[in-house]
């Protein structure tokens, strides 16, 4: 390290205390919950969604983004092995759809605080996490109220999640409020990449996911997932596999240049 830099660091430490500057160490470690979707577990979020942290599914812009369907798919997966809470602030949850995604409804608690009651929903989520709910999904929606009204409730929820080691996934519309950006340890930006059609019907939605923030690894990873909509009126006994799947990517072959031919011609 250059002498001038060392001197500057020493001056800052002596002036502001030894805690003012710390050397960056290895990325923070956290237990993870596997989503059973390879692209989510391997590429975007190493190992899966983190325990004790807030994961944010943020819409890239207005219009459909697939964040709520993805959240409900994750909740359905989680309900098979955990008690699961779903805070429906968007007012869009259809338990029948949740059952079609393979959820165990006996393990699901749906919290409906009312439209645009963000603070109340976050307070209720915190109460359940504190009581021991291991997995909580929060679907924010509607008109965004002022952040000052609910940011303390969000901070309390994040603290409870950290203390209990719970998994908390929050789906938020665009634009993402500053308190949410701050509280999140892992932010996946969801952007719709087009409808998946089959026999003239819309069978699913392709969603492009980008890791815009990660305290557990390097951000910037991108991947596309297909959210396949289950058949209507299907019962929970019929649906077995999760509907979030990864499209098989075709390998790209590049022509190998004929170096010898170029040299001969040149």
């Amino acid at each position: 390290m250059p002498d001038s830099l060392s001197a500057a660091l020493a001056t800052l430490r002596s002036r502001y205390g030894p805690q003012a500057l710390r050397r960056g160490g290895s990325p923070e470690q956290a237990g993870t919950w596997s989503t059973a979707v390879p692209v989510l577990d391997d590429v975007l979020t190493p190992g899966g969604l983190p325990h004790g942290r807030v994961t944010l599914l943020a819409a890239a812009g207005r219009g459909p983004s697939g964040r709520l369907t993805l959240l409900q798919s994750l909740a359905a997966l989680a309900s098979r092995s955990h008690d699961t809470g779903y805070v429906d602030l968007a007012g869009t949850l259809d338990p029948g759809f949740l059952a079609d995604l393979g959820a165990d409804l006996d393990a699901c608690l749906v919290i409906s605080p009312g439209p645009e009651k963000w603070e109340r929903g976050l307070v209720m989520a915190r109460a359940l996490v504190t009581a021991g709910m291991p997995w909580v999904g929060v679907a924010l929606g509607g008109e965004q109220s002022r952040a000052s009204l609910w940011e303390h409730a969000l901070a309390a929820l994040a603290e409870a999640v950290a203390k209990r080691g719970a998994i908390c996934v929050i789906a938020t519309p665009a634009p993402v409020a500053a308190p949410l950006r701050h509280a999140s340890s892992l932010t996946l930006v969801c952007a719709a990449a087009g409808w998946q059609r089959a026999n003239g019907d819309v069978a699913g939605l392709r969603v492009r996911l980008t890791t815009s923030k990660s305290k557990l690894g390097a951000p910037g990873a991108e991947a596309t997932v297909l959210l396949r909509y289950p058949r209507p009126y299907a019962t929970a006994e019929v649906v077995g596999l999760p509907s979030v799947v990864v499209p098989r990517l075709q390998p790209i072959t590049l022509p190998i240049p004929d170096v010898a031919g170029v040299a001969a011609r040149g």
Partner: protein
Amino acid sequence: MWPAWRLEVEVRVLCARHPHLGLLAALRRYPELRGEPVILGGAPELRLPVVAASAAARAAGVRVGQPLRQAQQSCPAAVFVPLDPAGIERLRAAICVELHRLSPTVEAGDEEAFGDLSGRHAEFPDEAAWASALARGLRSVLDVEIAVGVAGSRFVARLAARASHPGRIRRVRSGDEAVFLAPLPLDVLPVDPAVTARLAAFGLDCLGAVAGLGPADLQRQFGPDGLRLYRLARGEDSGGIHPVPAQRAWSERLMLDGATGDLEILLGGVRQCATALGGRLTTEALAAGEVSVVFEIEEAEPISASVVPAAASGNAGELWTAVLGLLGELKPQAPVAAVRVGVTRLSPATGRQADLLRPGDGAREAVVATAERLRSRFGATTVRRPRLALDPGDLPERRFTWEAPVAAGATR
């Protein structure tokens, strides 16, 4: 792909049948009436029905629900006693205290008491020993023999208790409900008599015959009642234990040394009251579901605020936390002469022994209890559990129904 274990709670409900609490209260008050024909309901000249009758009165032909004058004609030597609500409540409270020693969720009615036997108890090796202990405890409180039934649901447990005898326990193992219920007559169903009459008109004479029908067929004939009939006949009723909320209320009042508007003094006074109340709660092993603070204003109406905290307060620290949140709502416009802190919705603070080998076993009870508190604070529709309908028909919005997250151990 997912963990192999799955959190499942086998629900077991105990039902204890005993003589009407009003009769027992009368016998405590007048021990000389033991063995005599006693009719509970009031004087025979009143136009009231018989509430309960002793064994000797029933043997003489007295029936519950018949007019008191008719009962007098059936049994002229009977002693008519009025209802003693205070005595009944004392007995009911004693039943709850005794059952709560061994079961986390109890319900005490006039002629039945229910207890939750789900999971395991650290003191007893199996369910039979646990049920025996509960029965012995009830017998010591009521001083009569109890008929006990244990099953996987409230409805089947009640029928098992009816099939049992005083001093005996009838257990219906999980999975045997249908076999137990099959030979029983239709009049045991808790439905409108018109429904049972219609079932009989179809040639159905027992629960086994009803259980053999499909849910769609029963729904077409009886509407929503049909689905309930289907579940009851198979012993799959969703009625759990409905704990009676404690009506007790405690409060601590502190008269201030001279009316004052000084917030520091008011804070100190409220803290003193909260500490004293919290100590009482800890001593009695109770937790408060609702907390209130009252400022008594000199020569004016008192101002108050109350809250149902997310977690029940069982000690001084938790109570102070709940009270602190209320102080911001109270803005006295005149000097305060006295402060009062009150707690209501008292319930036992103890719980059952969680099964350590079953991950999340204890957490689920806490989650459901928290859900109940959130429902009482924010509304019954704010926290619910979805359930798929058995035969929804063609309308997608009828594919599911909402139900309350029941107390731990109770049947869904």
